[in-house]
């Protein structure tokens, strides 16, 4: 209740400030109205993480100059920006546009994003990516990149792709024993668990998260994964002390043959000079190891004071092939815009990621998913560390906990 009042106070303050400024400016001669370039009259504020500020800002500034608006980017801390956005919008302090990983159900559930009608332009987007931006058939997020993880293989250390995860670990252990590597396999799970990176291994056991609204993560396939995870933790195949930065460094320094990560590390790995290829994640449970398909999107704030400018950003800027190709140059991730996909398909790394992405599974777009991540990561970590005496029981307990949380959240 205080929040909405604060917004009004802000609006009144701005209005009074504007009045004062107008009064001060009154004696000045009226400005010439016949200027060649369109006059700047709308100002958009965009929130995103530093990585995407660097990629979006030059593209958006060029577009804004063309349309005749001003645009300002505000750098936000990745792990906190979604919660900050959710808190800031009702207070009237949020941006007009928010660029982040797709989290449509959470944002709609908190009433902070506005629906967007793409019209015929909806046909330009990859249907799965577009669907991730919808809730109950209404479009909220406009996707721009489709990402999935894969295995980077050091071709000096491991010249041949591993058929199964066990093969990869065996090859990795042989290298460790020979002293030419430090870790048999690198994946940055520490310190809090990383189910997003491990989903490929989990899904190779046939494990899924939901069937419709029904939770399936703790079924027998999931339990089989839990047992395997305990084994990998004990044997050192997956090291729970390895965080994202350590895992990446191990690979870049040639001290591990395999690394699970996404296209966001591509430029860094290229610069390190390590010879690599991009492989599908080797299957651990016998079925196809399907990673998550992650989508990134732009959302329009429900309380935007610049609805026309924001709407143009969503339906014009975000639907241009030039924009999508420009973003690709920065993040090397498959564009969601189909005409742009065709333009960038000559890049072998992108083609490899896209081929693996064909089998990827979407993150369930239901609000119950918000209750899954926390217990899921915690349980994986406890199993990897051997803190859970019986991994299968820990996994079943996790299911109970998630169900309780979903019931409590309504």
């Amino acid at each position, binding site marked *: 209740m205080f929040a909405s009042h604060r917004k009004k106070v802000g609006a009144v303050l701005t209005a009074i400030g504007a009045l004062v400024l107008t009064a001060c400016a009154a004696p000045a001669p009226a400005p010439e109205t016949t200027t060649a370039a369109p006059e700047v009259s709308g100002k958009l504020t965009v929130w995103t993480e530093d990585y995407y500020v660097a990629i979006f800002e030059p593209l958006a500034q060029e577009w804004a100059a063309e349309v005749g608006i001003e645009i300002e980017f505000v750098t936000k801390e990745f792990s906190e920006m979604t919660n900050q956005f959710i808190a800031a919008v009702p207070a009237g302090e949020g941006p007009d546009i928010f660029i982040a990983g797709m989290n449509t159900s959470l944002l709609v559930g908190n*009433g902070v994003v506005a629906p967007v009608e793409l019209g*015929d332009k909806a046909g330009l987007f990859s249907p799965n990516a577009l669907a991730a931006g919808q809730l109950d058939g209404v479009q909220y997020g406009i996707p721009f990149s489709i990402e999935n993880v894969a295995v980077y293989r050091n071709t000096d250390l491991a010249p041949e792709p591993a058929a199964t995860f066990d093969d990869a670990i065996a090859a990795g252990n042989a290298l460790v024993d020979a002293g030419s590597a430090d870790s048999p396999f690198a994946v940055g799970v520490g310190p809090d668990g990383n189910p997003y990176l491990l989903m490929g291994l989990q899904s190779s056991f046939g494990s899924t998260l939901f069937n419709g609204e029904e939770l399936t993560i703790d079924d027998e396939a999931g339990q089989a994964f839990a047992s395997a995870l305990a084994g990998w933790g004990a044997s050192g195949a997956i090291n729970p002390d390895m965080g994202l930065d350590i895992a990446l460094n191990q690979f870049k320094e040639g001290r591990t043959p395999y690394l699970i990560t996404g296209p966001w590390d591509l430029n860094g790995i290229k610069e390190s000079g390590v010879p690599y290829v991009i492989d599908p994640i080797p299957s651990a449970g016998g079925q196809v190891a399907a990673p998550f398909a992650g989508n990134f999107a732009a959302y329009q704030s429900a309380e935007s004071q610049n609805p026309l400018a924001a709407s143009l950003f969503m339906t014009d800027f975000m639907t241009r092939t030039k924009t999508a190709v420009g973003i690709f140059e920065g993040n090397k991730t498959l564009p969601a815009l189909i005409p742009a996909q065709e333009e960038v398909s000559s890049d072998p790394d992108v083609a490899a990621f896209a081929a693996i992405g064909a089998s990827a599974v979407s993150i369930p777009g239901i609000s119950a998913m918000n209750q899954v991540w926390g217990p899921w990561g915690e349980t994986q970590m406890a199993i990897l560390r051997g803190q859970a005496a019986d991994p299968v029981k820990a996994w079943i307990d996790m299911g109970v906990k998630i169900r309780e949380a979903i019931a409590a959240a309504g």
Partner: protein
Amino acid sequence: MLRLLTPKPASAGSEFRPRVSIFGLISKIILIALVNALGLFMVSQFFLVNQVGLAVFAILGLVIINVIYWRRKGLPAKYLTPGLVFLLAFQVFVIIYTVIISFTNSGTGHNVSKESAIESIINNSIVRLEGSPTYNVRVLEQGGNLFLLATSPDGEFLLGGNNQPLESVVPSNIVSGIATEVDGYSTLELAQLFAVQEQLAELTVPLDEDPAKGYLRSANGSSAFIFVQNLLFDASTNTLVHSSTGETFVDNGEGNFVDANGEQLQPGWSTTVGFANYSKVFGAAAQFELLGVFVWTLSYAVASVALTFGLGLFLAITINGLRGTRVYRSLLILPYAFPVFLSGLIWSGLLNETFGYVNQVLLGGAEVPWLQDPILAKISVILVSVWFGFPYFFLVCLGALQSVPTELAEAARVDGAKPFQVFSQITLPLVLVATSPLLVAGFAFSFNDFNTIFVLTSGGPINVDSSISAGATDILITLVYKQAFVSDTVDFGLASAFAVIIFLVITIMSVFLFRRTRALEEVY
């Protein structure tokens, strides 16, 4: 004594009055005028947003301030008032606000006010009529009102505005089949539209007299679609009604509209829930665990302060009077000079089980789970907090030691006291008199020492059995932070309830400890 030093005025009145200079008077008038202007502005703002209570409060405050500063007497009040005002604004208000939030369900899914939630639900229910065509439009203006000039896919030209259904019109200008101008109206270009964009966002042109046919809306000022609104709010019954199915959603009193089956409409809104958050804190499942967290918080605070103070005092005694005290002092201040966030991250790296420097280099490849084992992690965080904190107490104790008169120790020695007796019965008590208020403050600080715990372990190692996600090193304040900000579903209401409880605990302990401190001061 002061009285003796002050020269007596020639006409000795009953009371000494300082002479007021013109400059002082003018600056006083200016300052109070500024305060009054600011205060009156605030009052007007409070009235504008219907906060009558706050407005009355502000008026009262202004009256009191004016009385205090225009009165001749009451000098102490003049000094105390600024501090009290800031105390009210930055401490008391925050506490009251936290208490208010603790009685609401504010958090994920209950994030906005009820009006905003209804607005959102209705906006989200406005969907494009399936299979409907796209209209090319221009936005026209007449007498401050906006109109849409639409060219239908069949090449028909239509004009309409808010509550004014579309009608055929003869345009005065057509560009490649699209109507752009009508006599009597001015066509707005994109640059002009930005100035009226909020008005444009609300422009809904009915297709027909029958609202169920839908209406035309344009988000970008150049193309429009036919939309239908599925949900309508009925203020008289406080329900939302589906326009075609007639299904009714009622306010469930817990910040959501629900249908007959209990299915909720998103979003919900923030509403008061009474003591629900407090009963969650003291709920049967959480109670035992919370007690564990409380005991650990207490032991962490006590151990951290005791060890920090002990080490600081020990080093101070060792170094006091030594040659080169200044050099040691400069060196020992280093841990204190680094920001905890930075050195905390470094420590968490150093103590990594497989890759950390401590295990790899210092212990020759041992795998000691410094931050992974629940008990070892507790010890580790205490040790690191000592590393952060001892320079502070070292400096304080060094200062206190140097202010202890040497005659006292000498006199004791002359009386035959042994060195340890001199220390324990003369020096230590005197040092304690000077430092005990700092120990109480240090205890309160350690009780809420968010930085050390969060940067080092984030409260981990994780305890999967915990129903409130409390890790082995979670103290109360990190638990609150996790409830409010870290997990995917945040709960400001529950976090505020925790914060209120922590506030009460610290207040009671501090009052008790300060009483004890005063007793100490009276003895010596």
